[in-house]
């Protein structure tokens, strides 16, 4: 394999301002049938993955890499309130679903997958960590087909949820799921690289190798447009509600407007001055 090819993309995004969107009909419409015994978090994961696959059947050994900012808030809050406020033990299924990788299980079950399955996180670079490990497995031949996804949910009451996300009052907040289907072979767009850098200087050595004529700078979290020597920038975050894994929206947002041969160099930074970057080629 020389670089991972994008076999599919799928997204779900809903800004939540009052009553939360009922996800059950959307799950049913996406998968063709309802799924029992799941909550909002797993529903989101299934909707995004279903839209990504769009009726196609991936190979059974397809691997799943899944990230989330804070996991299944809904079930964890439910269990905590039952235990500490109401004095009841957790319901068995609720307890099992407090493990965030339950979402991986339902995605694998819905699409008949038995390959590697990993739920992972990183405070600032959740999507990049999932993407990097998927690319690594594809490159090493451990995996030939990979679904990489994210999901973040909103919980009532919204002012409390904003506080959980450390967002100012009245910040628009949203629920989202973003999925990519990557394969080792193919003719479509590509995801050539994902790297981490301990410092800005380390990153700059790499970014200097990109051609400004064909490369657009994707503005990830914490990155301003005038930060690097690339004159063209791509901002997919402005106007989008806040959710933890917004970076996962970047590949599909870029490919929707890119011209063939164009590359996005997407850069994010964290509070410790570390950087993560990945490239998407149309």
């Amino acid at each position, binding site marked *: 394999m020389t670089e991972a090819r994008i076999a599919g993309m799928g997204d779900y995004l809903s800004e939540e301002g009052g009553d939360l969107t009922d996800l059950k009909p959307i799950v049913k419409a996406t998968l063709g049938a309802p799924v029992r015994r799941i909550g909002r978090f797993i529903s989101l994961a299934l909707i995004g993955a279903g839209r990504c696959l769009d009726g196609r059947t991936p190979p059974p050994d397809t691997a799943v890499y899944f990230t989330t900012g804070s996991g299944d808030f809904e079930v964890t809050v439910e269990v905590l309130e039952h235990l500490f406020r109401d004095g009841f033990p957790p319901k068995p299924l609720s307890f099992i679903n407090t493990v965030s990788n339950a979402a991986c299980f339902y995605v694998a079950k819905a699409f*008949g997958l038995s390959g590697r399955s990993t739920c992972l996180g990183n*405070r600032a670079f959740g999507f990049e960590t999932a993407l990097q490990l998927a690319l690594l497995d594809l490159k090493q031949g451990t995996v030939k087909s990979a679904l990489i996804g994210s999901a973040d949910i909103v919980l009532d009451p919204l002012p409390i949820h904003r506080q959980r996300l450390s967002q100012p009052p009245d910040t628009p907040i949203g629920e989202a799921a973003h999925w990519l289907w990557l394969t080792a072979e193919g003719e479509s767009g590509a995801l050539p690289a994902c790297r981490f850098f301990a410092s800005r200087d380390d990153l700059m050595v790499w970014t200097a190798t990109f051609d400004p004529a064909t490369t657009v700078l994707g503005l990830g979290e914490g990155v301003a447009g005038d930060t690097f020597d690339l004159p063209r920038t791509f901002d997919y975050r402005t106007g989008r509600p806040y959710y933890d894994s917004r970076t996962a929206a970047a590949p599909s947002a870029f490919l929707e407007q890119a011209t063939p041969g164009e590359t996005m160099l997407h850069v994010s930074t964290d509070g410790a001055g570390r950087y993560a970057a990945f490239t998407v080629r149309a």
Partner: protein
Amino acid sequence: MRRAWFHGAGLHTTLGATLSENLDALPAGPPPPGVTAVPLGETVEPVPSMLLNGLPLTDVETRLWRALEPVIDAALTASDLTPLQRERTALFLGTSSLDISVTEAIYARALTIDAAHPLMTNAAMGGLAETIARRFGLRGPDYTINTACTSSANALIYADAMIREGLIDHALIVGLEIFNVITALGFQSLALLAPNGMRPFDAARAGLVLGEGVSALVVGATPGPSGFHLLAGANLCDTHGVSAANPDGSTVAAVMQQALDAASLAASDILAVKAHGTASLLNDEAEAAGMHRVFSAIPPMLAMKPFIGHTFGACGLGELLLVCGAIERGHLPPMPGISAEPGELGLTLNQTWAPVGKGAFLLNYFGFGGNNTSLVVAND
């Protein structure tokens, strides 16, 4: 060859606060489990448990860090990294419950003041790893692997892949599982707890005992003092059920076989197997059936959970360190009286402090969410 060679390690379990204390305790066989009284409304639930040695279940908001810091410090110190190597070290945190114990304590305290909302702090999945990295001066990438009971085993597989690919030279792998009420009463709700200790594969098996575990291992691209390294690993998803493997053993056998194939070994090359061995009816049945599918002659089998309880996300690394440490001392740990006779599952566990040489060893881990992992480690 670049691969994850084992360097410095730290381990705190119910057996002891250091790796050597843990290893010193193994020849005596599994200790009896304790019972933790967990408040639930107006009542108290007795939960079979094996808590961290010498660290009482008090001051819960600070207890996680009091457990974590000495173990990580021991692993880093024993690895003798240069300041530059340490700064570039990647962090792989494998945990099921993260820092939920702290969140629970904060919420319980807040409830005494007003009708507080839970999960106002510590909710970010990557927050704990970020804090560990900052406290120990690590500026490499950090990963929180959250795959239930396979978490820290999967963390080792990914660290190995990154070392092999030349992306990093060193990684710190941390396995963490600290007592928390959700896990304790969640397993109580599932009726999976055994009050009289864990007896994997035994006719009298009745479930698991909660264990606490904090483990840390530095792996590097060059050989360490023990010669132990990860030869290969495999991870597959079993969609038979969200909380139990397929009882016919097919999915368990598949992950073991994939690990053996990746290591370019035959089943007969394996000197001993560390079972996952939760002592629950369904999982023991699945693992036993899987063993019989893969091995025509079952090698000596070990089960570490009777010694330390089920440490969930931490068991991947903690049990690995116990097994490798015991082998380095020249023996396989005994489980006197537990599964001494082949019952209906047709397996026995090692009963004596049996001598063992150099070679390859298979370690199994199976978790909620159908997450199945096998590791092959070697010291030759």
